[in-house]
């Protein structure tokens, strides 16, 4: 067991190195001289030289690469050129907003998606199945900013139930009111994903022999679904939700933009607009590490939940 956990964690290291290499190459692919891009073509040669030295661009490429990897592995993700703060400081400042948003979205997705997917699987090819499939297909088709704008129009502009802009005033109540629409927006997209996965996984489990045996033994349908089928069906759902984590983060960027909330999305767009390439590179590294971490944890959780996964 311990071996499995350690092995899985060791496996993350080459993946991380690969990802760092890709980011390194990607950043070097930017056409033109980064120093000129940053300072503009009016900058003096002196200033350009200083910036190149500061960014390490005057070093041979393999030195730059080695330096980049070593610094990242020691936890130094670089600094924002605009504010001078480290990337991790910048991220830490907005992370609570994004976590609050994505966590509530996951919660909404699980609360609605699991029962909906289960119902669809039980009534396979009957109207509840068709209805839930159509609804989840529509949910999957919404780019997050489109659904966000439509919700904003309906509930904030027309009905005036929620504030149109930002995290809205002070106090817990105002804070929560401002969270409702963005969380619902992300949550409904998440619901669509979770419904689909739960349905597919449940269909697989319901075809298993032990379900037929349990039914033959006279286990009540309710108990059969809850105790026997759903518990096993949820295992792949956990993995897939882990895989959709990236999509969730991507959609939260668009959601934050529409509802003008602070968060990682705003941070990225800010870095983009001010051409803060060091911050952008640092954010890429942060995201990549985070995604690899979530994948590793999901895999380990999968192993813990399902004893059938071989630890060897």
């Amino acid at each position: 067991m311990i071996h499995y956990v350690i092995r899985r964690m060791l496996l993350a290291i080459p993946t991380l190195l690969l990802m760092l290499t890709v980011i390194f190459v990607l950043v070097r692919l930017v056409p033109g001289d980064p120093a000129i891009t940053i300072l503009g073509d009016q900058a003096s040669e002196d200033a350009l030289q200083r910036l190149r030295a500061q960014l390490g661009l005057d070093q041979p490429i393999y030195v730059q690469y080695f330096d980049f990897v070593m610094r990242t592995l020691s936890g130094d993700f670089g600094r924002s050129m605009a504010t001078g703060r480290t990337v991790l400081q910048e991220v830490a400042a907005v992370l609570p907003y994004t976590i609050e948003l994505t966590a509530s979205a996951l919660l909404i997705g699980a609360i609605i998606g699991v029962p909906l997917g289960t119902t669809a699987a039980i009534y396979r090819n009957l109207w509840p199945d068709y209805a839930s499939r159509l609804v989840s297909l529509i949910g999957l088709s919404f780019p997050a900013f489109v659904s966000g704008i439509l919700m904003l129009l309906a509930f904030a502009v027309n009905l005036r139930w929620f504030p149109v802009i930002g995290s809205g005033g002070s106090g817990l109540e105002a804070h929560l009111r401002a969270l409702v629409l963005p969380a619902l927006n992300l949550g409904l997209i998440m619901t669509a994903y979770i419904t689909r996965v739960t349905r597919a996984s449940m269909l697989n489990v319901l075809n298993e022999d032990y379900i037929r045996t349990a039914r033959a033994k006279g286990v009540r349908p309710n108990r059969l679904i809850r105790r026997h089928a759903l518990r096993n069906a949820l295992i792949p759902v956990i993995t897939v939700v882990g895989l959709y984590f990236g999509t969730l983060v991507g959609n939260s960027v668009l959601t934050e933009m529409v509802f003008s909330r602070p968060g990682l999305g705003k941070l990225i767009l800010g870095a983009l607009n001010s051409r803060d390439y060091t911050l952008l590179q640092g954010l890429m590294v942060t995201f990549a590490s985070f995604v690899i971490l979530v994948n590793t944890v999901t895999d380990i959780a999968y192993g813990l939940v399902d004893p059938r996964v071989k630890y060897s």
Partner: protein
Amino acid sequence: MTIATSSPRRQSAFWMAFRSNRLAWLGVALLAIIVFSAVFAPWIAPHDPLQQNILHRLQPPSSEFLLGTDTYGRDVLSRLIYGSRVSLVVGFVAILIAMVVGSAIGILSGFIGGVFDRVVMSLLDVMLSFPTLLLGLMIAAMLGASFENLIIAIAITEMAPFARVARAPTISLKQRDFIEAGRAMGFSDSRLMGRHILPNMLSEVVVVGSMWMASAIRTEASLSFIGLGVPPPTPTWGGMIREGFENILDSWWLAVCPSVAILLTVLALNILGDALRDAIDPKTRVE
């Protein structure tokens, strides 16, 4: 020497499954309308999509401007019709590139095997789990906003699934007798991969392509909304929403019309992708 892509019997089972899927026809019909309006845009559009007219700015829908006008007095309906061209062309070309490059990587990786295969696959795993939008956003930001760069950015983000789909059958195919026979006859590796392995998985790759085109169009719209799409004044749906969003409080139609257009296009492609997958995979087929 090539094995037939699929036997006639399998083909007809595929068509029967696809034809009997009523939802699929809704997708086909929707998509047909969108493609039609993209192809014949100059003949259908009631106005010039770029023609500005300050006297007609921000007009609500009327009989002359069916979907109203934007901040510059341009006709929203005409821009919507022309905007379908960008979405479809970017989505299609990006997926085509992702399909060609991705399946080439997959076949190569499966064919060579060993350490190379393991390295490539773990890289693709990371790419698969990395947020598509963020990756696209960063690539587009690094390359700069233009039509070609947008296509490149989306193609890179959508490559991984194709590599995966192409790799699995390659591994089982390369052990089959007909590949061994080809090798004995002195065929080069590239000929074996291109002429003998590729045709055997083409249908799967194409189905995956249809499924991911929806995602590509969604990404295109999202990047345009962020401001990294095809630069103005070219009408794009994401860009129209971006502009319309500024006037959301008094001119709602500016953001809502392109929103509906994106939603319907992605929905049509998703329905179609689902139907194709169900038709090709008997396990999920509705009996």
